[in-house]
């Protein structure tokens, strides 16, 4: 039973840390499928987390915080879009730039407005997301195995957690079963054909970038309004890059993205749990190895040793109409 309890605790924290990864990786899915590479996921998430924390602290409303997060994230996406779609600049350079601008300005503005060493004031009550308890969770907890799974693993998460997991089939449906999704994917594979069909490549890519902004907004809001009670400087701590790794690891497919994010989330949760405790058979595993594992796995995958990750064909190339 002890092993079962440990496993439950591990899986529960896996879900908790996977949520921002799922949102961010799905965000990346939308732009990259449309041919716009985005290494600015990290920056957008951080900017959104800050906006959410700051606005929720001032207004005391979690809704206003979430709205601010989405607005800021979409705004940053539009900057990325303007640079890489309209001005046909390098998408990578633009993403790097956004990461730095956000990393610096969240600290400067946070310090200037709240004077708490780059934090926003701690949130409580209505300014923060509350967990949702499923009906009969308490009553069913006593039932062996199924009880704890229902009461602890499925129930008792934030609204955004459920939304993140719901977004996986929704994104799949949008990308593979709607006209918008077909066009979006076409723009990433063969923009010339889309243009010939009389659809604006530029506008399609902007729409994809806006979708990315909205989802990154959710990821950021989750960090500062749900997982933590407020914004802490640099709180994304590389999650944007892990999400990027998950996106590639999942070969740009929605369901795989969820699995990859859960895997990387599990590694993260496992590494925290493992600190100081030796594994049976293997012995002491350095925490640093566990932390580096998502990146190592992605590199191995990219090298083609575990299947082949083929990016969208027109990814990274600005679209130029025929001259």
């Amino acid at each position: 039973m002890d092993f079962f309890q440990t496993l439950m605790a591990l899986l529960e924290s896996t879900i908790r840390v996977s949520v921002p990864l799922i949102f961010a990786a799905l965000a990346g899915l939308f732009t990259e499928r449309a041919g716009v590479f985005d290494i600015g996921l990290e920056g957008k998430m951080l900017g959104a987390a800050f906006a959410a924390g700051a606005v929720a602290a001032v207004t005391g409303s979690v809704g206003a915080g979430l709205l601010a997060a989405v607005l800021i994230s979409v705004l940053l996406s539009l900057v990325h879009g303007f640079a890489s779609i309209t001005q046909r600049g390098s998408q990578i350079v633009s993403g790097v730039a956004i990461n730095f601008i956000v990393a610096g300005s969240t600290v400067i503005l946070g310090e200037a407005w709240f004077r708490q060493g780059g934090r926003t004031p701690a949130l409580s009550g209505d300014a923060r997301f509350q967990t949702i308890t499923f009906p009969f969770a308490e009553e069913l907890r006593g039932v062996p195995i199924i009880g704890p799974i229902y009461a602890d693993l499925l129930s008792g998460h934030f609204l955004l957690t459920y939304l993140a997991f719901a977004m996986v089939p929704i994104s799949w449906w949008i990308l593979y079963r709607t006209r918008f999704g077909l066009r979006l994917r076409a723009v990433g594979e063969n923009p010339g054909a889309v243009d010939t069909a009389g659809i604006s490549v530029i506008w399609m890519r902007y729409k994809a970038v806006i979708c990315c902004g909205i989802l990154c907004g959710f990821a950021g809001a989750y960090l500062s309004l749900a997982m933590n009670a407020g914004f802490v400087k640099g709180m994304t701590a590389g999650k944007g890059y892990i999400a990027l790794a998950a996106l590639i690891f999942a070969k740009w497919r929605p369901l795989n993205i969820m699995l990859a994010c859960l895997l990387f989330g599990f590694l993260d949760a496992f590494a925290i749990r493992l600190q100081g405790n030796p594994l049976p058979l293997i012995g002491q595993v350095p925490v640093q190895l566990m932390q580096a594992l998502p990146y190592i796995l992605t590199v191995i995958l990219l090298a083609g040793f575990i299947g082949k990750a083929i990016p969208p064909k027109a990814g990274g190339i600005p679209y130029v109409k025929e001259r």
Partner: protein
Amino acid sequence: MSNPYAKLPGWAEYGLIPLINLVVAFMVAGLVVLLVGENPLDAAYHMINGAFGRGEYIGFTLYYATTFIFTGLSVAVAFHAGLFNIGSEGQAYIGGIGVALACLWLDQTMPWYIVFPIAMFGSILFGALWAFLPGWLQAKRGSHIVITTIMFNFIASSLMVYLLTRVLKPLGSMAPQTRTFAEGGQLPKLDWLLAIFGLDIGNAPFNISFLLALIAAFGVWVLIWRTKLGYEMRTMGHSPSAARYAGISETRIIIVVMMISGGLAGMMALNPIMGEQFRMQLDFVQGAGFVGIAVALMGRSHPAGIIPAAILFGMLYQGGAEIAFEMPAISRDMIVIIQGLVILFAGALENMFRPAIGRGFASFGQRFPVAAQKGA
């Protein structure tokens, strides 16, 4: 919208456009200063005073500039072959192992001028090795260099935490760093160089690796514009298909260029480890690899542009500390914003003002055809 950009005279291409982009980046940074409730002009004054006001400040400015010349060259070399090496940060970090090992081995028995070349060799070796894998993966397995180098930055950081907390740390010490090097592991300062201009270097760690950085910059110029390899690199950067037709081996160029790039990034480690701290600490690179991206973009990947760009960023780092002292609302994170803005305006948005400037030249050319021809 789809017209190709007009050809501009050289001074506009390499002088005017970068300058305009830079000015816009600083104006936006000024807006952030305004938003925080401080006067941007005062901030600029404090920054310039803090960077050049005294001999000691100039020493610090040039100390930072040394670091950024190395990382800027590292990014620029890769740019010329059409590769975007975001991994200079990790390569510099790993390069530190080479420096630290050489110093730990020889510092008590050998003078600095013996240790320095060995440490330099070590830093190049380790930096190049860390860049070799992403290069090899891109060349042979087709994985994207940007993604692999990002991943390698994180792997490097985990590896270094492991090494510094478990392996390289002296017994009984709690701090994650190597022991302090004896005299053999300490580089002499360049106080005499500033003394020529009547400046006192004070405590600034401005050291001999600055000269190495200048030599490296010259070496990169020779490599790119005066050697066969450089020609092949540039061909591949301009047009991979042309390079393939000319019989240039893509695999070889990618791997060699990445190793040169990694070696240059690794050499950066000499400056902080042997020049300032005399030990290898956790996170000693402090984002210099990423500053290198801004420096390379601003310097248009030419050593003659990279050196002033590196000095400008050295000024931001040193002067930024002074602003933080005078204006508590503006911490050193302001530099990160400026760095991002420079990357945005000099990199991703470099063509934003080009059509307008092109039109300006075109209308000027219609009115004064002779003058315009001379200018071109």
